[in-house]
């Protein structure tokens, strides 16, 4: 009897102890939420446009040096030095006057020669048509046509390209596009079957004004039957000039100081 009482008591005590131990585990734990992190929204390019890590730069330079040391470089002999020849004629007083005038102009306004004016004169130089180089022009034009064709094929891809590649965020690119759309008066007499792509390379100032502009397919202007191209290129340049200062991001000047605008009239004219 006593034995059975002891067994019963033992088991009861065991049960009570087990219950006492296991009960706290039955209690519900609060949700384990991650701590709140504060996140600063920054533009992708601010981080991705960092040229490269300092370490990586050093490694790259070292590797480049080694590669260059290994490379066989073929060099052309330097041209022989020529003695300065005496002028074949005595300068006329008019020429002297011209030189003087230039000097005077420089003295008077050393800083007044605007970059844009200088650019216009560069164009004039390029527009000079040398009939002796027709063959060169033709050959070049062929290359350029192929290039332009390739460019055209790429256009659809480039339009999908992400801000990561372009260097401008989508919003920055959109702002710039919207600004230029408003300034570009498309010449309406353009032949819509032709390639109507004008590529203009710009060097900008930090405030978005144009320091230099260059039409990349400039030689096409002088090609026979392409007079419309000159008109189109001029309209694109006009748009850039009317629009300036361009709506560029306030930061990251090094990133966008060189900009290429691809004016393509085909899409609009063909509908």
């Amino acid at each position: 009897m006593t034995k059975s009482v002891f067994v019963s008591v033992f088991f009861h005590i065991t049960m009570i102890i087990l219950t006492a131990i296991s009960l706290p585990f039955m209690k519900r734990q609060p949700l384990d939420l991650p701590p709140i992190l504060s996140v600063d929204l920054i533009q992708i390019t601010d981080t991705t446009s960092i040229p490269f890590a300092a370490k990586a730069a050093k490694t790259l330079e070292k590797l480049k040096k080694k590669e260059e040391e290994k490379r066989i470089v073929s060099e052309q002999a330097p041209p022989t030095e020529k003695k300065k020849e005496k002028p074949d004629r005595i300068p006329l007083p008019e020429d002297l006057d011209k030189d003087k005038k230039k000097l005077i102009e420089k003295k008077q306004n050393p800083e007044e020669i605007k970059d844009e004016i200088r650019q216009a004169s560069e164009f004039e130089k390029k527009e000079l048509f040398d009939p002796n180089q027709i063959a060169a022009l033709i050959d070049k034009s062929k290359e350029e046509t192929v290039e332009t064709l390739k460019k055209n094929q790429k256009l659809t891809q480039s339009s999908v390209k992400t801000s990561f590649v372009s260097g401008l965020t989508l919003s920055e690119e959109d702002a710039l596009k919207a600004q230029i759309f408003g300034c570009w008066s498309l010449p309406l007499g353009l032949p819509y079957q032709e390639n109507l792509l004008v590529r203009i390379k710009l060097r900008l100032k930090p405030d978005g004004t144009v320091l230099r502009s260059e039409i990349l397919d400039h030689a096409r202007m002088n090609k026979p039957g392409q007079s419309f191209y000159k008109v189109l290129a001029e309209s694109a340049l006009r748009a850039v000039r009317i629009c300036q200062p361009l709506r560029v991001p306030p930061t990251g000047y090094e990133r966008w100081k060189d900009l290429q605008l691809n004016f393509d009239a085909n899409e609009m004219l063909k509908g």
Partner: protein
Amino acid sequence: MKKLIILFIYLFISPSNALIEVDITRGNLNPLPIAVSPLYNDPSSETIKDGDQIIKNIGEEISKIIEINLKRSGLFNPLKKESFVQKPDIAHIKPRFEDWKLIKAQALVTGKTTISGDKLRTEFRLWDVVAAKEIVALAFSTTPDNWRRVAHIISDKIYERLTGEAGYFDTRIIYVSETGPKTQRYKKLAIMDQDGENVKYLTLGNELVLTPRFSPTNQLVTYLSYFRNLPRVYLLDIETGIQEAVGDFPGMTFAPRFSPDGKKIIMSFAKDGNSDIYTMDLDSRVVEKITDHTSIDTSPSYSPDGKFICFNSDRSGLQQIYVMRSDGSNVKRITFGKGLYGTPVWSPRGDLIAFTKVFKGKFYIGVMRADGSGERLLTENFYQEAPSWSPNGRVLIFYRETKTDSEGKGFSAKLWSIDLTGYNERLIETETDGSDPSWSSLLSK
């Protein structure tokens, strides 16, 4: 391994160094704002007479015509003269571009006129206001009575420089001048400048005349005349006034047109209810039959290179447009749309064919490619037909008739023009009613 590292690093770096490219695929299609400053009159100049009128300020008159021409083209927006800050005499020497930028002008026209003795000298300059540079500078000398033509030639130069295609202002239009009630119309051949000025009548109106067409040199005109009630194709020299019948056909000849080299006339010849297309060499007078079909083949028109001919025919049952080689071989039907197609005219550019379409009682003027694809209807009306191309292939001129009322009144026939966009439709003012217009090529090439 090294190469892999280089490649990896290069790939990582290159995007940040790449030239940023932005694609501009849209612009505005607004007409270009242009300021046409009145041409400065040299104070020593004499006044000139234009008919009974004495023109004192010839420079201003020339600038007005330039302005009207550019505006009518639909591609330019000439700015109001009241807004001009700079006076013509100074503007001609050196424009203050800031003043012109202020009124949003993108291009500027200045000039100077001098009349001494029987010579009118007109200088003009076209400036790119935004780039602040001169882009065209020309001078013309002529007799004073030619001042309107000078204005048209200047308009052409401006148009060409700013649009990239040839202009069409220094041209003439030949048409059939109509007077009298609908049941008893008097029809005369008339010729005028493209803006409706300088009208001259070439026939007296004693017989019915139809479908006049210019030769490529603009010196000859071929047309259909019912002289002595015999409908025949005639040839008229505009300068001498001499006219002659083209060939001695034993039936009716009609719908004539010159070949692009001006050496042949292509026309229809009808006999016994059947009409075919023929050509006649103007030098040798040799006649050649081009089509040979039991149907009605008419309205032939050469392609600009002279290798093809478009015409309309009812050989398929309904009137449709066909294209064939100039020797009559390889005939192909190019229209398959609903309705009837007629009066095909090949564009001087060679890319398009203009036509008249009749569908559900309405008349349309439209264009399509030479293979019949890309049909575009430019304008719709109660009755209109006979399109003719401007020499640059951008504008079409045609005529439109209005409905008469229940009493038979209110009928009129007017000349209209429309450009390829289909938006720039304009009435061409003429002294009388007009029909069957035909545009000349540029007078000054």
